[in-house]
């Protein structure tokens, strides 16, 4: 826990920076509006009734895409990890897909699926599934041979062995993958919104930028930062709770 929440004094540099910014920069600065102006811009957007729906839309898209990615990535990862033929035949395809930068999926999906809500979820699911899939495959291969031997000597059928032995032993690796996927899914969600102008926080940022409303842009940047930090913390807490009750296998990178 100490690693996750470092000493509060560590927030001093950030606090001092914001304070100096607030004091030293005139309130009407066109390019670097002070933090209080960010707050006023956020309040104004909330009063106009555009902020809350946008935040919900972004969070919902992120969460739905992430859940699909976890289910698909973990399922495929277990399949690829446990069946050697599948693993051998898919190695090169997986290697190439891994080398591809996730953002290039966005224009491909827009071309194929148009500006549909399903497109958003597909892109997030596809890009966020990769770290989960790769970590799951690695996790399956790291299952202690003793465990698999137990399953075999007890003549468990294939599906029981996977469900009772492989899946539980792979959960810590899955969590590592999800941690990466969370960060990636936030980025891709915002990128889609900025790229396609489908509703969400990203669109508000683009609008603010086009109207030269710098306080709105900085305010939303701050809001996105707070949201992303909270999601990271929430996920770290979930990870900590799950791992503390997990069988005595330690998470491995």
């Amino acid at each position, binding site marked *: 826990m100490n690693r996750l929440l470092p000493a509060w004094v560590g*927030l001093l540099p950030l606090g001092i920076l914001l304070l100096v910014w607030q004091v030293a920069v005139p309130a009407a600065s066109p390019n670097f509006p002070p933090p209080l102006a960010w707050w006023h811009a956020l309040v104004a957007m909330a009063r106009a009734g555009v902020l809350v729906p946008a935040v919900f839309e972004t969070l919902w898209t992120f969460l739905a895409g992430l859940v699909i990615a976890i289910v698909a990535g973990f399922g495929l990862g277990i399949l690829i990890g446990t069946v050697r033929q599948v693993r051998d035949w898919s190695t090169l395809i997986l290697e190439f897909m891994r080398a591809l930068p996730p*953002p*290039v999926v966005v224009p491909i999906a827009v071309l194929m699926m148009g500006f549909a809500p399903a497109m958003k979820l597909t892109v997030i699911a596809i890009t966020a599934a990769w770290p989960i899939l790769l970590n799951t495959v690695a996790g399956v291969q790291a299952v202690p041979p003793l465990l698999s031997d137990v399953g075999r000597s007890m003549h468990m059928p294939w599906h029981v062995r996977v469900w009772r032995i492989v899946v539980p032993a792979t959960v810590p690796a899955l969590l590592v993958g999800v941690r990466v996927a969370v960060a990636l899914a936030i980025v891709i969600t915002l990128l889609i919104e900025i790229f396609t102008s489908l509703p969400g926080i990203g669109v508000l940022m683009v609008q603010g*930028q086009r109207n030269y409303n710098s306080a709105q842009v900085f305010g939303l940047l701050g809001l996105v930062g707070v949201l992303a*930090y909270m999601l990271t913390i929430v996920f770290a807490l979930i990870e900590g709770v799950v791992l503390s009750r997990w069988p005595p296998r330690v998470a491995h990178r």
Partner: protein
Amino acid sequence: MTGRQWASGVGGLLVCLAVWQVLVGSGLIEYDLLPSPWTIAAGLSTLVVEPAFAVELGHTLAATLLGWLVAVLAGTGLGALLGTSPRARRYCLASIEVLRPLPAVAFVPVALLLFGFSLQMELLVIVAPALWPALVNTMEGFAGVPQRLTDVAATFHLSAGTRLWRVYLPAAAPAVLVGMRLSLSLALVMAVVAEMVGNPEGLGYALVREQQALHPDLMFGYVLVIGVAGMVLNGLLLLASRFALPGLFRRPVARWDSA
């Protein structure tokens, strides 16, 4: 990988491409926007000989490398400072933990506001996220230098420069290199992103341009080029670090990290 694994890996790739080719090429799947692999290959071959392509590739690579250089210089410098001083860590770590998850794409509107459509805009979008892997890995590498080594340095009253060059850097080099590699792949990704939604130049813009012009073969061609560019950059850096530090790089350290 064994020879057999290589063979089936290549086999799997070929089977996939063949199925794709047959389905699309024979008209079983009638879909204008999904070209067959053969069409993509043809598009790619016309693409790479165009003079404009070299300019686009050059622009993206230049932005990537420039942004990476800035991020690595600042990141390793700050990381070394934080790694060697527990007090600095105590007073800065929480700020870093708060700033680090900030999604890099969110810098695009800010960068556009400050710099317009320009290379500076791209650099801000590249440096802001690419800084963290270099900083955090360097910090952890420096902080993890065994106490025995730092004690020896203190006993011999080594100067700060000698200590850095002879004690800290050799011990922390693998971690620093991991950070540099993560930064580099992130820098390329962010350059493409910045060009997709910001500065209309380079490979990222070309990708979007072909998408909007409904040229799926050229768009997939650019996707391939971007993927290969990432692999080549990563390979070159790996090669350079093996060459520079032959002894230290026997165990490759892998760490996933992301924007």
